[in-house]
C-alpha cells in the first residue's frame, strides 16, 4: 500500500523536482557518466544538461566541469555528484550533493539564492565565491574556502568559514574546529586514504556513525511522510469539491477555488513529498557510498577468515542497519533510484 502510494506520489509530485536550474556539461575527460533520474546511464558529453535527480560519476581517470547559471562546478576523479532539491521555508531550494570525491565550486556572481551544498555529513549555505568540498570514504567532509564565506551546518551546530579557512565534519557529528587552509594544494587523496584506513581499523565505530546518521534520515522521512499523508486526502477532497463547484455553480467559481484553495494546498503537499524524497535519496547515497563500500572492503579483507569476531560482529550490525533501511527508506524509493 505504502509502495503504491509512493509510486503515485512520485508521478503526481515529481514535477516539483523539475524547477531547479539545469547544469550544463562544459568539459569531460576520461570516465564520466550521467545516471539520469529515469535510471538510464549515459556517457557525459559536452553540451549535455543535468537536471534535478541526475547524478554525474567520474572514474579513476575521469574529470568533468559543469556550469549551472554562473556557478562553475569542477568535478575531480572518483566523484559522485547529484543535483537535488528540497523545500525550506516554503520555497524550493536546489541542493548540490557531493556524495563521494572532490568538487570545486566557483560562483561567478552571487544572487542570494545560491544552492545548498550537501554531503553525507553536512549541509553548507553558500555566501562565498570559491570553495572545495571533499567527501570522504567514511562519510566525513572536508570543506576549504578560497574566497567569500560558507556556513557549514551539521547536527544542529553551524560554523562560518571565511577565505582561507576550512573545517572537517565527521559523519553524524558536528563540525570540528576550523583550521587555516594550507597555501599549497590540498591533498584530497591522502586525506581520503587516511579516512578509509581509520574506518577499516575500527569498522564497528564506523557502523555506529552510519547507524546514527540513518536514524536522522529515518526521522526526517517519517515526519515529512506523516504530514504528507495528512495533506494528501485534503488535496484529493479539494479537487473533488472543485469538480462539484464547476458542475453545480460556475466555471469561474471553480477557477477561483482552484487558485485560492487547491494551488497552495498542492504546493504544500508537493513540498512535503519533495522532502520525503530528498531525505530518502540522501539516505540511499549514504547507504550505497559509505555503508556499502565499507561492507565491500571488509568482505575482501575477511573473505579467508569469515569467523573473525570483528567481521561477525560487523555483519550483525550491518544486517540490523539493512533491515532498518529496508523498512523505513526503501518504501520511498523507486526503481530508477537504484
Amino acid at each position, binding site marked *: 500500500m505504502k509502495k503504491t502510494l509512493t509510486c503515485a506520489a512520485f508521478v503526481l509530485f515529481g514535477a516539483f523536482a523539475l524547477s531547479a536550474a539545469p547544469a550544463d556539461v562544459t568539459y569531460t575527460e576520461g570516465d564520466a557518466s550521467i545516471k539520469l533520474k529515469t535510471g538510464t546511464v549515459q556517457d557525459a558529453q559536452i553540451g549535455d544538461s543535468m537536471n534535478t535527480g541526475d547524478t554525474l560519476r567520474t572514474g579513476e581517470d575521469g574529470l568533468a566541469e559543469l556550469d549551472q547559471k554562473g556557478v562553475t562546478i569542477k568535478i575531480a576523479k572518483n566523484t*559522485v555528484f547529484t543535483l537535488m532539491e528540497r523545500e525550506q521555508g516554503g520555497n524550493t531550494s536546489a541542493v548540490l550533493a557531493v556524495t563521494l570525491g572532490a568538487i570545486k565550486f566557483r560562483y561567478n556572481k552571487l544572487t542570494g539564492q545560491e544552492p545548498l551544498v550537501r554531503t553525507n555529513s553536512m549541509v553548507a549555505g553558500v555566501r562565498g565565491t570559491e570553495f572545495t568540498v571533499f567527501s570522504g570514504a567514511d562519510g566525513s567532509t572536508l570543506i576549504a574556502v578560497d574566497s567569500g564565506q560558507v556556513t557549514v551546518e551539521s547536527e544542529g551546530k553551524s560554523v562560518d568559514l571565511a577565505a582561507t579557512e576550512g573545517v572537517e565534519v565527521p559523519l553524524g557529528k558536528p563540525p570540528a574546529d576550523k583550521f587555516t587552509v594550507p597555501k599549497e594544494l590540498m591533498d584530497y587523496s591522502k586525506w581520503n586514504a587516511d579516512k578509509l584506513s581509520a574506518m577499516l581499523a575500527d569498522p564497528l565505530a564506523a557502523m555506529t556513525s552510519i547507524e546514527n546518521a540513518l536514524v536522522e534520515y529515518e526521522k526526517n522521512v517519517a515526519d515529512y511522510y506523516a504530514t504528507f499523508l495528512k495533506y494528501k486526502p485534503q488535496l484529493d477532497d479539494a479537487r473533488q469539491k472543485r469538480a462539484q463547484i464547476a458542475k453545480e455553480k460556475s466555471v469561474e467559481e471553480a477557477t477561483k477555488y482552484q487558485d485560492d484553495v487547491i494551488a497552495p494546498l498542492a504546493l504544500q503537499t508537493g513540498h512535503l513529498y519533495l522532502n520525503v524524497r530528498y531525505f530518502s535519496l540522501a539516505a540511499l547515497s549514504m547507504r550505497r557510498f559509505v555503508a556499502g563500500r565499507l561492507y565491500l572492503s571488509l568482505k575482501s579483507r575477511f573473505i579467508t577468515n569469515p569467523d573473525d569476531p570483528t567481521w561477525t560482529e560487523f555483519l550483525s550490525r550491518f544486517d540490523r542497519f539493512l533491515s532498518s533501511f529496508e523498512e523505513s527508506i526503501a518504501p520511498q524509493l523507486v526503481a530508477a533510484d537504484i
Partner: protein
Amino acid sequence: MAALILLASCASLQHSWDQGNVQTVARLINEGQADKLAAMSAVPFLVDGEIVTLKPDVASFWSGIVKAGFKVEGATLVQAAPLAPDSYTQFANTMEVKTFFAQYVKKEARLLELGTSQSGKRILLIFSDSSFKKTIYGFKGPY
C-alpha cells in the same frame, strides 16, 4: 523421439557451458587475475546484497579478494538455473536487489552455484554467456 534426443543434447550442452564458466571464474580467482575478473564484471555489480555502482569499486573487490589469498579449490558446478522471478532472494530479499535483477541483469543470465572442496562452502554467481561475451553480474559467498 528425435525431439527428446534434441532436448537432451541441449541440456547436456548447457550443462557443459555452465561447468566451463564456473571453471573459468574459479581459475581466474585462483590465478589472481583480478583485472580479467573486473573486465568480465558488469557495472553495477552485485556482491551478496550490495550493489556496487562504481567501476573502480568492482575492480577493488576482485583485487581485494585475490590479495587476501582467496582461492576456490576443487570447484564444481552444483546447480545451474535460468533466472526466475524470485531469483533475487538467493542474494538478498530486499527492494534494492529485486530492482537490480529486474533492471540490470540480462534475461538470459543464469544462476550458477559452485561447490568447493573447502569445507563444503559454496559460491553463487549470476553469469551470462551470450554473443561470445561472458559477463558476471553478481557474486555471493562463500556460504
